């Protein structure tokens, strides 16, 4: 008993190693990323799981849309209708141009469902997919992170996508000349001395909007994932003693509580990302 425990302790990673291993992406270079910023690295796990979640979301929506009935709706249709109505109401309240809403409404719905599904990857047991992946590859140190929104590359990619849509609508609604005019005259007013100040303010606004949009989702999901890891570590440290058993009970309790609280965060962050997408696109429609 005790020798087996000692052997396991010798092979088992320390708490720090466990967390660092779980925070490392499976990327295109084949080993852990060394520099903090390296644009030549592609995180393969983020790509695979985000595309997979997008495909699942599209497939479910397609199935429901195909079998839609005007009679008594099934449970799935009712659920999708509630989401659709909620997004549609928000879009109507924020983006006033009916023509833009033809594109912006479905965009908001896609963003909401996609991010919700990606965030929901957090609910899978922490080691489930990485362990399966390590068994498949035969490499016991293979890296895999399953939550695409807990990767800054994924969330900033989406927020930059929103920025591009905003720029498109700025040019489309106000015309290129009108937009440039706004860049130099809003928010402080039209005076040659104020042009540089206005322009700097506008640039800061665009930058802050985009960065905070992506960072907010990333930070929430990253912190949530880390807390799940800490809870898993607490359970992993259990032994057949009084304190060991209480650690195990604490693991189950804390894990359940955090998972329930996390349902709120997952839905709320998807909702906030969608709302801010609508708000930013709505701002692009307003002339100063």
């Amino acid at each position: 008993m005790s020798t087996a425990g000692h052997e396991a302790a010798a092979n088992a990673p320390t708490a720090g190693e466990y967390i660092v291993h779980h925070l490392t992406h499976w990327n295109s270079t084949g080993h852990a990323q060394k520099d903090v910023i390296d644009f030549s690295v592609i995180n393969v796990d983020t790509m695979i799981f985000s595309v997979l979640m997008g495909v699942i979301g599209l497939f479910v929506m397609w199935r429901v849309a195909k079998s839609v009935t005007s009679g008594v709706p099934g449970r799935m249709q009712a659920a999708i209708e509630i989401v659709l109505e909620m997004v549609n109401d928000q879009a109507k309240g924020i983006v006033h141009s009916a023509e833009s809403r033809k594109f912006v409404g479905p965009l908001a719905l896609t963003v909401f469902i996609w991010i919700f599904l990606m965030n929901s990857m957090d609910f899978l047991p922490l080691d489930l997919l990485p362990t399966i992946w390590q068994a498949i590859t035969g490499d016991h140190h293979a890296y895999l992170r399953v939550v695409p929104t807990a990767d800054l590359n994924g969330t900033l990619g989406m927020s930059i996508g929103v920025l591009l849509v905003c720029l498109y609508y700025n040019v489309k609604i106000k015309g290129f000349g009108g937009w440039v005019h706004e860049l130099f005259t809003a928010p402080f007013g039209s005076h040659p001395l104020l042009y540089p100040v206005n322009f700097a303010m506008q640039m800061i606004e665009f930058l802050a909007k985009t960065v905070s949009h992506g960072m907010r989702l990333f930070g929430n999901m990253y912190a949530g994932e880390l807390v799940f890891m800490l809870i898993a570590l607490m359970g992993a440290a259990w032994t057949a003693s009084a304190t060991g058993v209480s650690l195990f009970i604490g693991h189950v309790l804390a894990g359940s509580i955090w998972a329930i609280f996390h349902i709120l965060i997952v839905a709320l962050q998807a909702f906030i990302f969608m709302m801010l997408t609508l708000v930013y696109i709505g701002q692009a429609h307003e002339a100063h």
Partner: protein
Amino acid sequence: MEHVLGFVALAAGLIIGLGAIGACIGIGLMGGKYIEASARQPELMNALQTKMFLLAGLIDAAFLIGVGIAMMFAFANPFKLV
């Protein structure tokens, strides 16, 4: 080395503690105002609830980002001398 570890532990505590103070004050103020407003005008409750949850998420975000960073400092210490 020990100095670095000690300072990082202190910093992680400060990040979480100060963030929690700010987030709690913010949520408290907003929740109080929400209860007050819906007591005055109960018909606005649903509309205000959506906005309250949105803002709660926005307020929480900064704190949770802080917790994430503090946890990373504590377990995957980037300041550790190699």
